[in-house]
């Protein structure tokens, strides 16, 4: 992409009015939890921006994140983001293949040095020199370092790229690490989730585009607009938790009545994401509304939290694994100390005679 026109000029030519920008900006301000007055600034910012070059790298991943961001809707306001970016490299979506694909990546990096955004889904294997995942003859680590060198910002999408995800789960056979472990010299925005909510991904890109800066992030590098509150705190079933009304299984009366899913393993209290507010599939529903507890997929190590159906307040693993041994050992030491005391006493009694 070597288009030097602004997005405003480019889209006006295509008959997209500034009203559409404003409408998009109003929608974006709302999902980013910005005041509605920010819409004007967002519209202005996007109109004055150049089309954003994006290089999308896919490492140890399942393509679910791409599925999420490209979920087919009728052409509508939510999809305007795809006119604002130029996706210059993406394995799954691009036409080119083989060395032509790699050339496209190199070209984009050269043309937009210092300005392009790198989006990464998937974790990076480090064990055995990273041989467990290679693309075009180089390891994921090499490709990541090479591509990020001249990037403006890096966005990790999905729990694999942000926290290691499933490849990084115990026992982590490939030595998978998140992107933020490798790229430390520039902003890495983490948009976790398995997959992330599409609006969280597009909203963050829109923010970068209109303000030219990184949105406010939490301690795990996630935009606070989407990851600022626990699912539990925004859950419509929360009042049932407070009242102690719980579904005990997935087909009991409580489940049918829509009670709290804490006892069937919901991780909502420790999961930070916008599922309860933005919801999924264009606002249709989210896991808890559909009757299943939250898996905590946006949290580090969600795969190893001790089981999706084990309540959060239970112990992880088997805390009684050494109970038998402990009882025997305790009894043995107790008996021994009693025996020693008896012995000592008997001795004293004998000597006393």
């Amino acid at each position, binding site marked *: 992409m070597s288009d030097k026109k602004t997005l*405003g000029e480019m889209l*006006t*030519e295509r008959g*997209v*009015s*500034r*009203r*559409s920008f*404003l*409408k*998009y900006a*109003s*929608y974006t*301000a*709302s999902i980013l*939890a910005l*005041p*509605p*007055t920010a819409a*004007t600034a967002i519209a202005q910012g996007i*109109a004055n921006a150049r089309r954003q070059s994006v290089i999308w790298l896919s490492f140890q991943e399942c393509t679910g994140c791409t599925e999420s961001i490209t979920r087919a*809707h*009728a*052409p*509508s*306001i*939510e*999809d*305007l983001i795809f006119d604002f970016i130029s996706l210059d490299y993406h394995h799954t979506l691009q036409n080119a293949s083989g060395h032509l694909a790699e050339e496209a990546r190199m070209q984009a990096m050269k043309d937009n040095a210092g300005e392009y955004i790198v989006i990464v889904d998937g974790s990076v294997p480090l064990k055995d020199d990273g041989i467990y995942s290679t693309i075009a003859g180089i390891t994921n680590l090499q490709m990541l370092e090479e591509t990020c060198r001249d990037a403006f910002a890096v966005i990790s999408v999905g729990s694999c790229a942000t926290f290691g995800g499933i490849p990084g789960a115990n026992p982590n056979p490939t030595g998978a690490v998140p992107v933020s472990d490798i790229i430390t010299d520039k902003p890495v925005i983490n948009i976790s989730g398995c997959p992330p909510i599409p609006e969280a991904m597009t909203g963050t890109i829109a923010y970068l585009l209109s303000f030219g800066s990184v949105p406010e992030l939490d301690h795990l590098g996630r935009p606070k607009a989407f990851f600022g509150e626990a699912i539990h705190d925004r859950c*419509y079933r929360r*009042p049932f938790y407070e009242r102690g009304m719980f579904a005990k299984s997935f087909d009991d009366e409580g489940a*049918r*009545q*829509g009670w709290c899913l804490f006892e069937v393993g919901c991780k909502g209290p420790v999961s930070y994401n916008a599922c309860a507010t933005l919801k999924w599939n*264009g*606002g*249709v*529903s989210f896991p808890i*509304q559909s009757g299943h507890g939250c898996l905590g997929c946006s949290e580090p190590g969600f795969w190893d939290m001790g089981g999706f159906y084990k309540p959060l307040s239970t112990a992880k693993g088997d805390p009684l694994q050494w109970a038998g041994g402990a009882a025997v050992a305790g009894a043995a030491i107790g008996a021994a100390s009693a025996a020693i005391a008896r012995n000592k006493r008997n001795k004293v009694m004998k000597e006393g005679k």
Partner: protein
Amino acid sequence: MRDSAAPCLSEMSTGMASSVLAEIGRMLDTLAGSDEPGSIDLRSLPLSDADRAQLEELLGRGEVSAELALAGDSEVWETTYPGVWWIRHRGAGGKIASEVISVCRIPEILMTHPADIEAAASRLREKLETTDV
């Protein structure tokens, strides 16, 4: 889509509508006094469906309403309280993508942007040059 047997808070009125009304009243005072507009993002508030319907009914529909055909439909209307506008943007599948109450003389979205005026002028010139009217 939701199981009809499951109780849902969206059906309950929480009294939020009246607090939104109070906020609108303050914004109208500001607009009248210093000509400074204000707006409220309804999606960012914990409004139930019942609250939203109640608010819409309380504000009613006034003299002006407009339908906008841009990347999905949008509706804008002035409520029975002049200066209080309701802006509803629809997105994919006709779902509400953004809903804002704007307290102003006229919402920005109704005004034509200078860039669009320029584009219109050049498009019209082109038309005149290429066709006989």
